[in-house]
């Protein structure tokens, strides 16, 4: 047992600061003295520890001392065999996972409702996706998890696949049967890699869905900066205890990470990971317990308003909603005649409340340990007001948030294929060379290699009309799209 009270990177930084070291190395702002305006803005204490790798502070690319110790502490806290500190966000952790288990031309089984980072990894690695269609909840219009049966079918049909990729949970808080999927994949010699961008708290809260490491998965990408409390862009990549049996080793994973990760890892990010891990390891149950209670209270109060549906574990069906993350405050808004994105805009424009995202039928308000009771009251009251002031007839509103894609080419083949730019309105029947998605949540409506259909074009047009921020194409206005020749 390691002592979780320790925070080696953080402690080393404090020793460095107290030693009043004279810097003749980068960064050039030299503890902020060379950039007074930035120092006034961010604070002297912050700039004083924005430093570079050096012997007493270890090196992220090749950790042997304090970073290694901190990574080992984090691994123990999460029940993992090893933990990598990541400074390029969970995007980079997801890409490193995929590239660690698949080479060019090898198959990976995954749901289609993944974050764009997973499909980006396929473009980089040349791995070929075998998509399992997620279930769809008709009322909410949201994509769900994968049923274990569908995954098993895909495994049997693609015995040569190298890995199974699972979201745990989805952005909306929905979980697949991760334990059963992991056991089935392992029985067929496949590795299981898990996107836990929205699941950090599963490792510490009570009564939450099973975490990737507890389910026996081989790798997991953890957004510490979401429910874990660290700075934006800081994440963990975990290796499971049985990872080595399925080809996942610490050395190979580090080599893959070092292909794309910076050699100047920010110590602000690294120390934030260290401090946040310590706090979760010591007080996680209490911290996450408060979040669960806050979300439950908010759901109850939103339920009292009427019209809104703050959904939760009543959705659990043992298949594509195997479990639900009760810290998620997702609210279905279509019954008051407003798209989620419209409620999202109203909250910001009229009530100075910024939520995580709104799609065409739902909103997601991110609840965390940082929420004060009075802020929750404001959110609920603002939703009551939006209903009173802006609700309208819901006739004619689209519901589907997920359209089953027709995959014609692998993402890599499409991305690097010969392409022509055409007006998006004239692109039906062609194969897309680009992504199109609403951001957030960043789950592609269209990915490279997929057939553009009139249904997808209707969805894009409707989302734009309602005010969704569409991204992905080279054309910043999403009026032109590159298609394959």
């Amino acid at each position, binding site marked *: 047992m390691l002592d979780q009270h320790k925070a080696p990177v953080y402690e080393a930084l404090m020793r460095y600061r107290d030693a009043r070291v004279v810097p003749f190395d980068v960064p050039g702002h030299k503890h902020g003295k060379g950039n007074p305006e930035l120092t006034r803005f961010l604070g002297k204490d912050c700039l004083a520890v924005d430093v570079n790798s050096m012997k007493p502070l270890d090196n992220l690319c090749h950790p042997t001392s304090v970073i290694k110790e901190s990574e080992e502490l984090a691994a123990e806290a999460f029940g993992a065999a090893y933990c990598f500190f990541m400074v390029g966000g969970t995007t980079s952790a997801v890409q490193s996972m995929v590239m660690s288990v698949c080479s060019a031309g090898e198959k990976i089984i995954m749901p289609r409702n993944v974050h764009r980072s997973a499909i980006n990894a396929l473009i980089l690695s040349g791995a070929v996706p075998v998509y399992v269609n997620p279930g769809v909840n008709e009322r909410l219009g949201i994509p769900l998890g994968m049923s274990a049966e569908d995954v098993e079918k895909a495994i049997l049909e693609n015995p040569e696949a190298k890995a199974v990729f699972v979201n745990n949970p989805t952005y909306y808080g929905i979980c697949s049967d991760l334990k059963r999927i992991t056991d089935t994949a392992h029985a067929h010699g496949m590795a299981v890699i898990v996107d836990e961008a929205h699941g950090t708290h599963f490792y510490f809260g009570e009564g939450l869905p099973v975490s990737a490491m507890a389910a026996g998965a081989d790798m997991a990408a953890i957004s510490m900066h979401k429910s874990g409390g660290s700075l934006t862009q800081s994440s963990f990549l975990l290796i499971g205890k049985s990872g080595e049996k399925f080809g996942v080793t610490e050395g190979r994973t580090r080599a893959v990470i070092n292909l794309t990760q910076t050699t100047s890892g920010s110590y602000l990010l690294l120390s934030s990971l260290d401090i946040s891990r310590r706090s979760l390891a010591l007080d996680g149950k209490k911290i996450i317990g408060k979040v669960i209670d806050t979300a439950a209270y908010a759901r109850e*109060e939103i339920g*009292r*308003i009427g019209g809104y549906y703050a959904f939760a574990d009543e959705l659990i069906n043992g298949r594509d909603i195997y479990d639900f993350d009760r810290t998620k405050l997702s609210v279905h808004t279509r019954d008051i005649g407003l798209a989620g994105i419209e409620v999202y805009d109203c909250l910001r424009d*009229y*009530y*100075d409340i910024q939520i995580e995202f709104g799609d065409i039928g739902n909103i997601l308000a991110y609840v965390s340990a940082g929420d004060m*009771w*009075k802020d929750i*009251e*404001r959110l*609920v*009251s*603002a939703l*009551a*007001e939006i209903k*009173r*002031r802006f609700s309208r007839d819901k006739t004619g509103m689209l519901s589907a948030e997920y359209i089953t894609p027709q995959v014609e080419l692998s993402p890599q083949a499409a991305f690097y294929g010969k392409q022509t730019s055409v007006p998006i309105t004239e692109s039906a029947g062609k194969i897309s060379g680009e992504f199109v998605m609403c951001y957030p949540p960043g789950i592609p409506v269209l990915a490279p290699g997929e057939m553009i259909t009139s249904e997808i074009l209707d969805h894009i047009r409707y989302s734009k009309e309602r005010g969704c921020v569409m991204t992905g194409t080279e054309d910043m206005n999403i009026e032109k799209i590159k298609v394959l020749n």
Partner: protein
Amino acid sequence: MELWFSELHTPDVKMSIRVDKQIHSEQSEYQRIDVFESEEFGRFLTLDGIMMLTEKDEFIYHEMITHVAMASNPGIKNVLVIGAGDGGTVRELTRYESLDNIDMVEIDERVVEVCKQYLPKTACCLDDSRVHIFYDDGLRFVRRHENEYDLIIVDSTDPFGPGEGLFTSEFYGNCFNALTADGILVNQHESPYYSDDAKAMQRAHRRIREFFDICRVYQAHIPTYPSGHWLFGFASKSVDPLSPDIEKWNASGLKTRYYNTDLHKGCFAIPNYVKELLESV
């Protein structure tokens, strides 16, 4: 003995009152509550170090936050008071026999208990049979009521603490919804003088104006509040506070120390710089 209570009215301006002794101090779930005894102002209550009331000048605030609305619509029967844990606003309201019901929503039960114990001059009427105290968040309480109250008085702390939610659009909208067709909303509107207070005043004014057809501001002189120049917001769906009918209030025979119907008419006359601040929001 040189024992002084000081409050920063801005980072560069300080108001101090010599304290004879500290009578009470505690940290409640929501805030720090202190009661002091002084020569000049008698007993006074502070929350998180900010002056709430003194025995000497509280009558100005409490008379002005109640009688202006009560004189504007003698038909008021059902009143909601938000905040007001010291009981001063309720004391003034209970003087009207015409009222049927007074609901008071205070988030911090400890404020009420401390005031009952140490500030009986304001907390004296909280046991009136028409008064119902709810220990709840004002924002939550008011969103659960619709077309119910003839008058809502927001007697809150500043918008930088537990009272923050009571200066928001969602709160004013919920109040509009909780008021009857002749409903009036009176709120303490901060001060126009120092810039941070003035910004809070402008924000509140802008948001109230989104909902109410009649939206006015009146003023009073309160020595222990920042700058001494304090504003109240008067918003209503239909009642005009400057109708000649307000003179009828004099028939009630209520004896007041600050408020009278001449002052009622005069207090809506505000300085040009305040007008400009309000018009520019």
